[in-house]
């Protein structure tokens, strides 16, 4: 109790100091009660308090609200006073949110965190929007405008008008116009304005205006407004329908690229060497885990490198998976050439071992692999949302494919590989060290699987079961595309990907997959050697 009082004294002292010290403190001071208002219990009260703070229009409020939404504001039980608190060695270090001046310390028992939920966060964003609408920082303004648009608030119309008048950046101005329109629709302004607003939104089009339009269409009584809204909706929905097709193709391509990545390594080990590697999925998994380890190291030692983590992981993943591949080839597969079914069994065994090894080593749980900044988020292309990670994976898969083509077609190693796979004795008699080539080719295939793992770690679980999910699909791709033909794999992957994505909306995810599988089974009957089968004795042999 005593130290309570003393702490309170010091607080008063600091406050006094502040008052004497500076003028800004003056209104910081009359912010104080509002800020303490945040200490009231109940989310409704909290939202009101936020509104009240925002109403002051005082830029000093912005940081306070920021720290509120990030959950750094605490209320002191003793006097319900609100502070920004940061963990200190003994309990928390308090600072006055308004002035940022030190306000002593408190133990975790003495203060309660001010909990925020989505509703509050929303209120905060709106408030921040109105506050930063005029901010000199263009990025802030852009965000603010977007927020204003998302929850168009009639109360803000006048504010918006000012902002529009002042706004220099055309893009932001447009957004503000939309925001204004959205606000108008919710307001009780005359129908003429509302219809105008509707037209503004209609010209913008796209999914995010649908919401506001449907709302007004639903709410408003029959009349000009309703019809206008209805027309706008029908026209927008019409255009969106067209876009949906494009969207499906896009998704298909993206899925295809994943399949391609998963299958391309197999296309070498199975397609070129004729080795059934059931442990292929585990190679992918190894790649993913390599990424995890790399990121872990970076997190702990050099966080600034994080955006490069994947770039660093790629070669490592290739090496790790490649080496394991070479090992498997040397220790198991080389004794089984010409006995594909045995190879199949042996490698299946290897896959079990690898899985359990990873499980005992890293534990059975998923491991966190983060997206670097340039792989998170999405951008709009017309009405298409394209996520960066998907986009990069598509690009990446194609690059890998091209690189592989080059290696096989242009390099001497590639030449040797093809020589060996086509006529082993001949090749060896020509002085090619066939065992060496075998090992390297298998290593290459596995290494590429490893690279695929790096990419897949961006969209999927990094767990010991990662590989299992892809092995069957990748076999389907290779067989469907035609063994011994990388182009076949490419076409196969994208065909299956797109087919899958077009089925999904109608048949549902499960049935879609089944249909694709059945289709492949039947297809193999028709063309036992796949889409791009080479005819003739050379291949049959």
């Amino acid at each position, binding site marked *: 109790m005593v130290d309570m009082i003393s702490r309170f004294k010091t607080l008063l002292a600091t406050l006094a100091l502040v008052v004497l010290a500076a003028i800004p403190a003056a209104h910081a001071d009359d912010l104080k009660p509002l800020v303490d208002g945040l200490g009231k219990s109940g989310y409704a009260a909290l939202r009101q308090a936020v509104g009240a703070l925002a109403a002051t229009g005082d830029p000093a409020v912005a940081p306070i609200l920021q720290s509120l939404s990030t959950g750094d504001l605490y209320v002191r039980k003793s006097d319900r006073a609100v502070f920004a608190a940061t963990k200190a060695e003994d309990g928390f270090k308090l600072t006055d949110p308004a002035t940022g001046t030190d306000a002593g310390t408190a133990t975790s028992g003495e203060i309660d965190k001010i909990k925020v939920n989505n509703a509050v966060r929303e209120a905060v964003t709106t408030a921040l929007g109105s506050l930063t609408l005029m901010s000199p920082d263009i990025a802030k303004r852009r965000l603010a405008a977007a927020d204003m648009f998302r929850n168009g608030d009639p109360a803000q119309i006048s504010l918006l008008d000012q902002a529009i008048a002042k706004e220099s950046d055309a893009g932001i101005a447009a957004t503000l116009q939309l925001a204004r329109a959205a606000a108008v629709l919710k307001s009780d302004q005359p129908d003429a304005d509302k219809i105008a607003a509707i037209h503004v939104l209609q010209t913008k089009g796209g999914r995010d205006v649908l919401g506001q339009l449907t709302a007004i269409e639903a709410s408003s009584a029959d009349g000009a407004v309703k019809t206008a809204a209805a027309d706008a909706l029908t026209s927008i929905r019409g255009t969106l329908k067209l876009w949906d097709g494009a969207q499906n193709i896009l998704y298909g391509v993206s899925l295809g690229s994943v399949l391609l990545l998963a299958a391309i390594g197999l296309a070498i080990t199975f397609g070129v060497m004729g080795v059934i590697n059931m442990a292929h999925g585990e190679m992918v998994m190894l790649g993913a885990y390599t990424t995890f380890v790399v990121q872990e190291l970076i997190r702990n030692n050099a966080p600034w490198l994080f955006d490069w983590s994947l770039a660093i992981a790629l070669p490592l993943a290739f090496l790790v998976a490649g080496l394991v591949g070479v090992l498997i080839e040397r220790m198991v597969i080389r004794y089984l050439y010409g006995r594909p079914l045995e190879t199949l069994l042996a490698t299946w065994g290897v896959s079990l071992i690898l899985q359990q090894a990873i499980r005992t080593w890293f534990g059975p749980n998923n491991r966190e692999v983060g997206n670097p900044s340039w792989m998170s988020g999405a951008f709009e292309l017309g009405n298409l949302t394209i996520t960066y990670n998907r986009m990069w994976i598509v690009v990446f898969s194609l690059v890998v494919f091209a690189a592989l083509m080059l290696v096989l077609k242009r390099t001497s190693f590639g030449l040797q590989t093809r020589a060996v796979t086509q006529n082993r004795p001949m090749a060896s008699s020509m002085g090619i060290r066939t065992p060496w080539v075998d090992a390297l080719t298998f290593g290459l295939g596995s290494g590429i699987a490893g690279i695929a793992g790096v990419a897949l770690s961006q969209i999927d679980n990094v767990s010991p079961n990662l590989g299992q999910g892809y092995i069957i699909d990748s076999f389907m791709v290779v067989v469907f595309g035609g063994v011994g033909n990388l182009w076949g794999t490419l076409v196969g992957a994208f065909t299956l990907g797109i087919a899958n994505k077009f089925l999904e909306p109608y048949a549902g995810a499960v049935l879609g997959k089944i249909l694709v599988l059945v289709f492949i089974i039947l297809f193999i009957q028709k063309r036992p050697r796949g889409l791009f089968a*080479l*005819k*003739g*004795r050379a291949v049959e042999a």
Partner: protein
Amino acid sequence: MNTPIDSTKVAHAKAKDSLLYLDGVSVSFDGFKALRGLSLVIEPGEMRAIIGPNGAGKTTMMDVITGKTKPDSGDVYFAGDTDLTRMDEASIASLGIGRKFQKPTVFESHTVWDNIDLALAGVRKPFATLFHRTTKAEIARVEEILETIRLTDKRDWLAANLSHGQKQWLEIGMLLAQEPKLLLVDEPAAGMTDAETAETAILLKEIAKTKSVVVVEHDMTFVRDLDVKVTVLHEGSVLSEGSLDVVSADPKVIEVYLGR
């Protein structure tokens, strides 16, 4: 199974009295033309030797005749009116065309006896074989063949344990067991000792008394031993035809084949 005769074919008329009739047969694998307009007629009871450098299309020709490969164009008729291009291996085989591979292929994990027994003309349908019991006649026939191919004492050996030459013979024995009208023999002398080669030649001539035989061979001495009409293939079509002396005198042949 006989396929309906297509009497509009002019070619067909000529095919009538031949045993095997190929006309303008072409086959290509991804652009590579294995056969280009090959024409060949085998008379009943005839024995024919076919020679030619590697890639001349000898094996492909056999594939076409035995139904393994379907020709892109051209006619293949057997015994005058049977269109082989429309049949699969099994039915062609049961028509009476036997084929011996270059590399001897016998059923390694079966005994010599079973190999012959399996090849024996007769039941071929799954359920028939399921309930089939070997008849006295069959046993006699197998023993007879074992005599011909001089493997009676090895009847209970696994084929896998036979020597290369013996496998060749066993395979010929299997052909005989099929009782074919026409035998296609691919390099029977390959990898045989001179003695074996000579014996094989005798054996084949023996067989040729009752059946038509087409022998594909590299080994000139062997072909000479056979002493029959020779057809020279080159790049998928007939280069020259006639007795070995005539053929070997042919400048074209000398150029592409012998004159190396």
